[in-house]
């Protein structure tokens, strides 16, 4: 479904990704872990075509992102949703308008036509009755939920989560993790989670990829990764202990 071929990414001469090869198949559920600045979030932005690789190629359903027209790229983005680290809600719009955004703008519907769907989605993420609120009045956990509601509004086949539980208390963290699992299982959504939180990357996915110095150095089930023979992986998983 998504394939990265020898992807190299450099910012201001600094190599962030160093020849990454990687394939994502439908219904995969996995996490990407690694120390801060190792290129995890950049990897997600590359897949969405928000940034471009210095060299290498990224394919979505066999078509190179680099060869796609603007319209083809926009269609691809309808199938690949992303929950941003900061949730990135549009702060000039109400919660309801945020959730309805993609339905209104991409499917040409009015907000009134989408209201029923908006209420259903808000209920799904336990945020019923908040559609008239402004994002500024929401807590961090609520913002993440609304961000997720906005992402799932158009029923994407893939959802990428960038640090979905960072900065949340343990209860909220668990509720967001449950939501990720529920969405991926109930709706058959391919799930990619970038996270530092051990509970998040062990509870929500089937496989974990470890990144170090811009390369994917280890892959496996959470149990396998925790007991990896690679010292760098064990060091990271055990929080430097």
């Amino acid at each position: 479904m998504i394939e990265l071929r020898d992807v190299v990414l450099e910012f201001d001469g600094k190599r962030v990704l160093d020849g990454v090869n990687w394939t994502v198949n439908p219904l995969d559920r996995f996490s990407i872990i690694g120390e801060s600045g190792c290129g995890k979030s950049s990897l997600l932005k590359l897949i969405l075509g928000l940034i471009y690789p210095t060299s290498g190629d990224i394919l979505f359903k066999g078509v190179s992102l680099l060869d796609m027209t603007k319209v083809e790229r926009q269609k691809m983005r309808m199938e690949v949703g992303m929950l941003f680290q900061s949730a990135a809600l549009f702060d000039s719009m109400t919660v309801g308008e945020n959730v309805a955004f993609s339905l209104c703008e991409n499917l040409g519907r009015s907000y009134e036509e989408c209201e029923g769907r908006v209420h259903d989605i808000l209920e799904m993420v336990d945020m019923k009755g908040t559609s008239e609120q402004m994002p500024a009045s929401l807590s961090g956990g609520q913002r993440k939920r609304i961000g997720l509601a906005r992402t799932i509004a158009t029923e994407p086949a893939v959802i990428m989560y960038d640090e979905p539980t960072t900065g949340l208390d343990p209860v909220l963290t668990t509720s967001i993790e449950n939501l990720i699992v529920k969405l991926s299982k109930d709706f058959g959504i391919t799930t990619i989670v970038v996270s530092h939180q051990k509970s998040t990357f062990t509870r929500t996915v089937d496989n974990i990829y470890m990144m170090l110095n811009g390369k994917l150095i280890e892959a496996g089930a959470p149990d396998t990764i925790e007991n990896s023979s690679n010292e760098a992986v064990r060091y990271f998983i055990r929080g430097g202990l």
Partner: protein
Amino acid sequence: MISGYLKDWFSAIGDFTLFSFQVLQGIFSFKFSKARTMEQMVFLGVHSFNITVITAAFVGMSFAFQVVKEFVRFGAGGLVGGILAMAVWRELGPMMTGAVLAGRVGAAISAELGTMKVTEQVDALKSLSQDIVLYLVCPRVVSLTIMLPLLIGVADVVGYFSGFLIAYFVGDINPMSFFNSTQNMLGVMDVVGGLIKGAFFGFTIAMLSAYRGLQTRSGAKGVGQSTRRGVVASLIAVFVLNYFLSMVIFS
């Protein structure tokens, strides 16, 4: 160091040229939202009404105060109306309104888009299949290109009549003589030329400010920097454009 600076400079010019091309393509495709353009016309234009009127009134009065004193001293009080009208319609109205809006609106556009950039809202828009140029830039550019000439029209009228009040009350100029000299000296092209300048100013301010806003990097400091750069570039552009447009239109 100099070569690095030149490289950055040429790179920025190349980027801005490409950006301008994309914006023009977006505008002439007519695919941008008319509703958002109307919203921006209210926000960028209607909400600038008060500051435009206040600025125009005081600029008109200051100019009239100086002109009246000197012209009356040399026995040319009868020309004050015409001189004031030409100055206001040709130069003062367009330039002062352009400068005021470069500050007020230019800062608003750069800061808003810059904040959206650093809070990942721009990336979120792209991830939701939106074309940033069509969604964020074209409505602002079109609305300011339309609204700035209208505001200049308002500024011209307010500046002229404020000047008249000073001429009448301070310089004791006869109203009939004031309006007659205006009628004799002010041509249609003086009025239209000022409004044409406004369209160019509006387009340029919105383009430069939007470009700077979308170039924002690294947090609150970056937003401050891009806002400052947007305003400075807009102000310089207004003054430079004003000179060349005056040369072309009024020669």
